[in-house]
């Protein structure tokens, strides 16, 4: 960062940061034990929520420059928001972090290569569902042709950094993208209609994790929902919002609000904790655009995670069964801290007959995936994952259930890293429930 950039960042901090919110932190330190980076750095205050807020306030007050180290402290934050529910003062830490990152990234010169990558990813790829699917098809081609085999036999992945190498191993086998394209826009429930819901398909969920999306639709139909899937919806913008691309996120939010307006649905259902938390915060994202606030608020109020809907519809009281296995649940940070949904997934899992649910220690501590954190802050991410796997091992679980694509991939990497692939699998809660529902149904038929 040069002097000019620093001055500009400082000025924008003074203009844009919510000073009341900064003052709302009374530095009691209640957040410290909840912060994964504070714990993993051996209690380094610079990597704690209280420390980061102090730094933001320090920049606003002019007591410190926004230098590389301040940026590092903010970059090191997972954005898991575990500090929010434990904060007695109710500081909206996530909002502060988003604003601070946006100011830094928009005012700092990024290296040319990084800039291009960001531009392609944030502007050219995620907001364009078709392009994303085409890219995913390439992955399918790679997986289905002999290419993957050749690459693996020749150990060509060795040139990749270890995290990417792990990632290559655990990416799901991608189904044909045509499945998404030929999907109907309105689907009838399989039983008596209880609710009419819209399905927010997401970007990664509707490409790389397409089969989980297909299961979600099926599950909603099983649960008695008429499902509407507007095809002009796009990526929620969470990755943008968390990475200092707020303007782009706002544009995407507006497109989604338009896409889901006037559908006459009870809820808008998501199956990714990260998306859900960002979607139900659109009113904050668009707070400075008066003509949008009301529309955003009514959009927000309809957002609901699938597990929460299933419990509301008493799906857990239906017959669900699986062969014996021990199952544990890894909270999605943004599902728990951003949407206060953490009992429902457990209720659902606990209701599957024939299985044992074992709660892991610190299940609500972040797994280290955190959007693209595991790719940009690999070292810290892997430390956090190691802790997570230690707790997972202690449960002797055969299945780790998650509720967000990032967590799912991260847990898969954890299993691979620990060499547990033959006795443990990671699965999205939706796929697990479809499995349990259909297993039970088949058993009854036979």
């Amino acid at each position, binding site marked *: 960062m040069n002097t000019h950039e620093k001055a500009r960042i400082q000025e924008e901090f003074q203009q844009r940061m919510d000073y009341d919110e900064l003052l709302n932190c009374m*530095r009691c330190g209640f957040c410290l*034990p909840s912060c994964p980076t504070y714990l993993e750095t051996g*209690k380094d*205050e610079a990597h704690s929520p209280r420390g980061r807020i102090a730094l933001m306030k320090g920049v606003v007050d002019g007591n410190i420059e926004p230098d590389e180290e*301040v940026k*590092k402290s903010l970059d090191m934050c997972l954005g898991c928001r575990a500090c929010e529910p434990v*904060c*007695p003062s109710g500081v909206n830490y996530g909002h502060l972090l988003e604003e601070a990152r946006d100011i830094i990234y928009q005012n700092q010169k990024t290296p040319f290569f990084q800039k291009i990558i960001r531009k392609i990813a944030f502007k050219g790829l995620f907001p364009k569902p078709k392009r994303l699917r085409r890219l995913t098809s390439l992955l399918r081609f790679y997986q289905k042709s002999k290419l993957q085999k050749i690459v693996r036999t020749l150990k060509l992945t060795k040139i990749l950094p270890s995290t990417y190498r792990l990632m290559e191993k655990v990416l799901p086998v991608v189904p044909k993208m045509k499945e998404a394209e030929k999907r109907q826009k309105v689907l009838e429930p399989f039983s008596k209609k209880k609710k009419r819901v819209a399905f927010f398909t997401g970007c990664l969920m509707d490409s790389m994790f397409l089969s989980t999306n297909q299961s979600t639709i099926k599950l909603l139909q099983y649960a008695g929902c008429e499902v509407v899937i507007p095809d002009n919806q796009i990526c929620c913008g969470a990755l943008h919002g968390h990475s200092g691309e707020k303007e782009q996120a706002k544009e995407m939010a507006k497109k989604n609000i338009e896409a889901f307006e006037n559908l006459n649905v009870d809820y808008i259902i998501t199956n990714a904790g990260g998306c859900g938390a960002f979607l139900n915060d659109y009113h904050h994202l668009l707070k400075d655009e008066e003509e949008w606030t009301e529309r955003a608020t009514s959009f927000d109020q309809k957002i609901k995670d699938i597990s929460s809907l299933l419990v509301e519809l008493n799906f857990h009281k239906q017959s669900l069964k699986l062969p014996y296995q021990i199952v544990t649940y890894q909270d999605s940070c943004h599902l728990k801290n951003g949407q206060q949904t953490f009992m429902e997934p457990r209720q659902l899992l606990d209701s599957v007959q024939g299985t044992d649910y074992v709660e892991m220690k610190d299940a609500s501590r972040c797994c280290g995936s955190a959007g693209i954190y595991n790719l940009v802050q690999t070292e810290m991410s892997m430390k956090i994952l190691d802790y997570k796997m230690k707790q997972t091992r202690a449960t002797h679980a055969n299945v780790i259930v998650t509720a967000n694509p990032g967590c799912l991939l991260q847990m898969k990497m954890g299993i691979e890293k620990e060499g547990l692939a033959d006795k443990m699998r990671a699965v999205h809660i939706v796929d697990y429930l479809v499995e349990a529902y259909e297993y039970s149904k088949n058993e009854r038929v036979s």
Partner: protein
Amino acid sequence: MLPDEVKEQIIEIVGEQDFQDSYTNKLVYSYDATPQFQAMPDAIVAPHNTEQIAQIVKVCNRFKIPIVPRGSGTNLSAGTTPLEGGVVLLFKHMDKILEIDEENLTITTQPGVITQEIINQVEERGLFYPPDPGSLNISQIGGNINENSGGLRGLKYGVTRDYVLGLEAVLPNGEILHTGGKLAKDVAGYDLTRLLVGSEGTLGIITEATLKLLPLPPAKKTALTLFEDIHMAAKAVSDIIAHKIIPATLEFLDQPTIKVVEEFSKVGLPTHAKAVLLIEQDGDSHKVEQDIKSISTICKQNEAFEVHVAQTKEEAEALTTARRAALSALSRLKPTTILEDATVPRSEIANMVKAINNIAEKYELDICTFGHAGDGNLHPTFLTDVRNKEEIERVEKAFEEIFITAVELGGTITGEHGVGAMKSPYLHLKLGEAGINTMKQLKLALDPNQIMNPGKMFAKSNRKKVVIKHEYA
């Protein structure tokens, strides 16, 4: 900035990794949980053992560099704010429990262990470490000892001081001192253990402690009693104790406090009550039942309109946890919350509550009061905004009046938070000239260069609160 020579020597002792002096690091160690106080240190150092600390202290003493030992920075008297710069000492590497001795009922620990961890470890063995300050999930035991922290169980079990049997400390000249031991009786010389407990880092650096443990009481019951009248609640407190019942916990919360705590914790606190008492008794199950019954009767005689006994352990824990969050939850109402811990003999609680409310009214301030009513230790908390200079002045005047009233009622200016920098201007109210002089002489005898946590305990004529040097500019 530290002189280069000092920096080099400290790095030589602890290694590069455990010496930090970037602006970012200095800023994040420039505060504790006390509002209005902030000052940049010159460096942050994390030693690994007592020997390293002794060496660091010798260097600092030679160059007259201030040293501020710091735990998790949760204290409320600006005790760990480095007001005169210097070295902030962290104990993140000295965080091991060294021994739990089940024969002598003691635990020996390094200063960096989290208080809750001590409680967990000993309770697993059926033992009990009673001091439970509000921040026990975060605070380090070294900080508790230096501040002589209290907590919710102070009424029956006393405070940190009552559990410290022995200490290892590095004195300002670099000598390593050992006091006390695993002994129930020990009258060999002055009681240096007690001198160091609560000395707020002004006499030396505590590097190891041996603490007393009790057998874990087999049963515990928690009750919530609701009052229409705040003074009747205060009177019930005195009455319970006059009936020769000493509950483990006897906490008082007024209505504004109940409302915000409930908003945060959602445990079902009765927001329509003007005051509540949270009462906990422990011991053998028969006695606990009996006491809770008597307490209920006494509360009803004092016009409690409802008495609710928690039915499960979870419910009871939810209530005490909610109470611990009271102070921080209050900050939802206004940007700044400033609280004090003036303490009176418990028989004077009703008078003190009345006086506090009168003072708040006189200065036209918003006040919430909660606290450990059973031991006379109240936390009047003013809700204000640091940006409103005029109001802050009124807050300070009101506090001064509260302190004077407390002392007049036979009380003290601080029951458990310590003097630090926040209350040093009022220490004379409690101690008088002779008291202050004696303490100053002690301080100078042990720390002639005044390097240990300077700016605390003793008032300076000009109090500096926010001292941030714009070094980078």
